[in-house]
């Protein structure tokens, strides 16, 4: 019998989908494999490729087997195809096919819609690795370097997950799309990544932590809604990806938290109580809280753009088709069809922000974004607790949802972090107080010097409370290859 829990290594590609007896897909994946390895090797500097990194690898998709820790050289990481176990008698959880058996094959009428969703999801995964390619050179510790690489190899595996679906279910088009996923490149002029936020560079570690906290959280919400898909293979893939995604949330939340903690600690030691005494604080070799707020504003607003138009017929169609559900669809107590329901969205009318009821079906994006905002505010609360605990009078805040938006109803107006609509002139005069300036970026960049001694951390970040895999503080998470 096919073992659908444990990862099989009987082909070059570890998997729990019986690849060795699926010659066609196996052949397609094997043809794609060298291109992937080239892409990886071109991206990560050579000495890191040769370093031993303490990574977790999944050997099965049940809780006992998906986090085996050991030293691995990254090009030898066991990327593979892992699907969560099939749920018996699963049904389409939403839309007009609600309650019908979930599809094991692509329904013809939804083929293009599904392919597009899979390609967009797949495009973000390598995109983020590309954005983060230079960070290893300035890692504040071996611990952080290891976390960066863990995030990177798992984004790589998520690309594999989407590519498998393309090969398995979309024939020739699928193969072309899979090749294009390696052809496009973050920030490229000719072939950029599909979504804006994945073409911005990640210039420093504060940006990286903000990115993993805010932007990867969008990824998590998208995966959550695809995990509700009536197309069962997509649902199973996304469910397993979500277990890995949790690590990325962790890196972001604790990364920002440790920077905040270190800043407060340094201020206290130096007897500085005013968090806006920016020059003095920066002289301590730490990042002042107002600058952290600016970075938060930037990454949060870019991430909100990823949810698309507030009112969207595409989203309505995907939900109605049962291709994409809502966050925690099964726990929502309604008819899961939304035919007569309404949902409250914010909109701009005659220069003011108003709320209005729209058909709930068209507000699927908005609803997911509201769920995201709720999810994202949790960590901000934790950061503020650390600030309060240190006795510093400052509070980090999520800006208004209309602030600094390029997509959706707010893209036509300038909104300040409190939600007030500003004139173009007012915005231009004030935006430097809300968004990181070049000088802010230069200062952060000046702190970005590597710290590769086991157990040591750069001046601007506190050590973690707990090690990865419960390792002690001076554990050598990366054994650096010295050329």
């Amino acid at each position, binding site marked *: 019998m096919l073992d659908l829990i444990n990862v099989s290594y009987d082909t070059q590609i570890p998997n729990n989908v019986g690849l060795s007896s699926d010659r066609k897909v196996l052949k397609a994946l094997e043809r794609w494999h060298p291109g992937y390895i080239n892409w990886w090797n071109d991206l990560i500097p050579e000495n890191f490729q040769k370093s031993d990194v303490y990574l977790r690898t999944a050997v099965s998709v049940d*809780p006992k087997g998906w986090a085996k820790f050991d030293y691995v050289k990254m090009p030898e990481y066991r990327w593979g195809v892992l699907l969560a176990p099939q749920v018996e008698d699963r049904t389409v959880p939403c839309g007009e096919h609600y309650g019908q058996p979930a599809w094991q094959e692509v329904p013809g009428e939804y083929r293009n819609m599904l392919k597009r969703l899979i390609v967009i999801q797949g495009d973000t995964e390598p995109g983020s690795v590309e954005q983060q390619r230079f960070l290893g050179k300035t890692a504040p510790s071996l611990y952080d370097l290891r976390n960066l690489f863990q995030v990177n190899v798992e984004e790589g595996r998520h690309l594999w997950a989407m590519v498998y679906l393309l090969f398995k279910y979309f024939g020739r088009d699928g193969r072309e799309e899979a090749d294009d996923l390696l052809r496009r490149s973050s920030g490229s002029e000719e072939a950029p990544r599909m979504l804006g936020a994945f073409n911005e560079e990640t210039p420093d570690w504060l940006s990286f932590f903000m990115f993993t906290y805010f932007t990867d959280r969008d990824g998590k919400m998208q995966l959550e809604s695809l995990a509700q898909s009536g197309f069962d293979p997509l649902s199973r893939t996304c469910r397993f990806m979500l277990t890995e995604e949790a690590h990325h949330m962790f890196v972001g939340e604790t990364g920002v938290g440790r920077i905040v903690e270190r800043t407060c600690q340094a201020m206290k030691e130096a007897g500085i109580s005013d968090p806006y005494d920016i020059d003095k604080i920066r002289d301590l070799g730490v990042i002042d809280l107002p600058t952290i707020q600016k970075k938060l504003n930037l990454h949060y607003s870019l991430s909100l753009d990823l949810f698309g138009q507030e009112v969207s017929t595409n989203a309505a169609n995907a939900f109605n088709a049962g291709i994409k559900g809502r966050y925690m669809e099964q726990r929502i107590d309604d008819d899961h069809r939304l035919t007569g329901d309404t949902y409250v969205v914010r909109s701009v009318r005659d220069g003011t922000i108003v709320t209005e009821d729209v058909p709930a079906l068209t507000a699927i994006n908005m609803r997911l974004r509201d769920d995201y905002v709720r999810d994202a505010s949790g960590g901000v609360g934790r950061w503020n607790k650390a600030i309060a605990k240190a006795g510093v009078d400052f509070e980090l805040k999520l800006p208004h949802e209309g602030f600094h938006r390029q997509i959706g109803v707010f893209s036509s107006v300038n909104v300040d972090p409190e939600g007030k609509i500003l004139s173009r002139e007012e915005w231009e005069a004030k935006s430097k107080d809300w968004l990181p300036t070049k000088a802010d970026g230069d200062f952060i960049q000046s702190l970005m010097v590597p710290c590769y001694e086991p157990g040591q951390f750069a001046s601007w970040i506190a050590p973690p409370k707990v090690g990865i895999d419960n390792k002690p503080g001076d554990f050598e998470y990366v054994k650096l290859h010295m050329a």
Partner: protein
Amino acid sequence: MTLPMKQHLIDPEICIRCYTCEMSCPVGAIEHDDNNVVVNADSCDECMACIPVCPTGSIDNWRIVAEPYSLEEQYGWEELPEQEDIALAAGGDTDDDDPIAALLAEAHKGAGGRPVAPASAARPSVNLYPLSKPVAAIVQGNYRLTDDPDHDVRHIILDFGGQSFPVLEGQSIGILPPGEDAEGRAHLPRLYSVSSPRDGERPNFHNVSLTVKREPGGVCSTYLCDLEQGAEVRVTGPWGQTFLMPQDPDARLLMICTGTGSAPMRAFTMHRQRAMAGGDGDMVLFFGARTPESLPYFGPLKKVPDTMLKKHLVFSRIEGQPKEYVQDRLIAAQDDVAAMLSDPATHIYICGLRGMEEGVERAFTSIAESIGEHWAALRDKMRDDGRYHVETY
């Protein structure tokens, strides 16, 4: 719930509320509000499925508590409370449990799937004294139970002094024999099912009895059977979270055992006797041995009234009589057994040498057929309901 207990908790300062643990918990013991992710002490069965999936390390926290922290208390936390000063060696190292978990899994595998505790079972304490921190017990007595030179079975009573060692009927304790094996490593513990009820061999003394057969060449059984009164023994545990008796007074018990497999059955019987003094026990026992002389507790058993416990003592080596095994008696009593099988209040317990499993399974298959049931399906359902328990060795 026996107290004090070891409670599973999540460190709110380190947790990032990704809810991966909640999604991986097979019994739904983990839940969250906007503030914290918390573990329900009533339903967590310490299966550890949530431990490796946690990205943060916040999940692997334990406190020995006299009263478990409620969900409300946990929701209000900003940090974990300190370990309170409870007169116990604080257990901790979960790595410790692995050899024990393996021993238990091996013993329970005859149930044909993941065992589940009876729905109304009391919650057991486990791992209060991990392998790395065993507790010392004093031998209060060591009595020979059998009158058969080839079958030296002992009733050994251990006293934990002032130290708390809460143990439920059906649970096991680990004995660490002194000395080392041929490769110079310390011996692994041997597990023994307790044969005394939860309030103690002597009521309210919380001492514990074991039923131990001397095995030729057995390191631990030889050590135990030779112990003198007053000797000190290193004990770990308690262990086992599924082979437990139902608290529900209407539950019926069908117990099948051979030899020292009678230990948990003795504990069950004594607990019901004490809890329902004079009442109807609704328990049936099938107990196999070679002869009456080699059947542990033969004398005391005979004195238990039939209203409390219906006894089938079955012997395979009585001169002049055909050999009879427990499965033969099950078939002989098949109308009664069939009636119990079709009653959803019935809980089945099988304990003894591994060799008994096959015959018992065969008997059940035939009896189930007689009432139009498919045994494997019925057994799986009973097991999933917490009503079918096997512990063999």
